[in-house]
């Protein structure tokens, strides 16, 4: 079974530039998550989708971050414009989800390799 795919693996940009990350979840997984992991910290949830709908984006800095999952499969996370403090690893995860429910409490999340972003 193929895992969660992410690209690019590394990205270096200057502050005020824009950047986009792509994620393809495990086939059949309804729920998709984006996390931000700053050096020395654990992953922090930015947004989660159930199919193509947003379930929780309470921790997404919406003035500069946006995410979409238009067809309910792959997803894109964008930062525009980037700041120095956005330097981090951006992780995508997916889980099976529960039919008819937003997210199951017992869902196991499977993580991709991440994209390491450096903002200069």
């Amino acid at each position, binding site marked *: 079974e193929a*895992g*969660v795919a992410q690209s690019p693996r590394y990205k270096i940009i200057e502050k005020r530039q824009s950047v986009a990350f792509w994620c393809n979840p495990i086939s059949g997984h309804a729920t998709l*998550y984006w996390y931000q992991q700053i050096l*020395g*910290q*654990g*992953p*922090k*949830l930015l947004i*989660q989708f159930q199919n193509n709908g947003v*379930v*929780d984006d*309470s921790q997404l800095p919406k003035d500069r971050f946006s995410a979409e999952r238009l067809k309910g499969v792959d997803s894109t996370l964008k930062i525009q414009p980037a700041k120095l403090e956005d330097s981090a690893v951006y*992780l995508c*995860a997916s889980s099976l989800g529960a039919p008819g*429910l*937003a*997210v*199951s*409490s*017992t*869902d*196991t*999340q*499977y*993580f*991709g*390799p*991440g994209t390491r972003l450096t903002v200069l």
Partner: protein
Amino acid sequence: AQSVSQHNHHVILSEAASLELGCNYSYGGTVNLFWYVQYPGQHLQLLLKYFSGDPLVKGIKGFEAEFIKSKFSFNLRKPSVQWSDTAEYFCAVNRYSGAGSYQLTFGKGTKLSVIP
């Protein structure tokens, strides 16, 4: 603030030593608990999880964890570590965050270095 605390930032052990990594959380109500591991150069992967039932759960590679509800703790243990256990370990709590949604909150992680 509600949080997940991992007490040790970096643990260094010799092979065959016993391991215990602490994890405490501050959420009330029902929670589901996880330990994830990230080996060098690899992605985060599930080590074990607790949802209900026996508070002592066993995971992959000989790891186990004990849920103590009264102490809000979910400590990870292994009787005898190997060099291949060198990795970063994250405790995580899945809790209801409202609007039919559950949110996974991670601790800061504990880096384990095992010396051959």
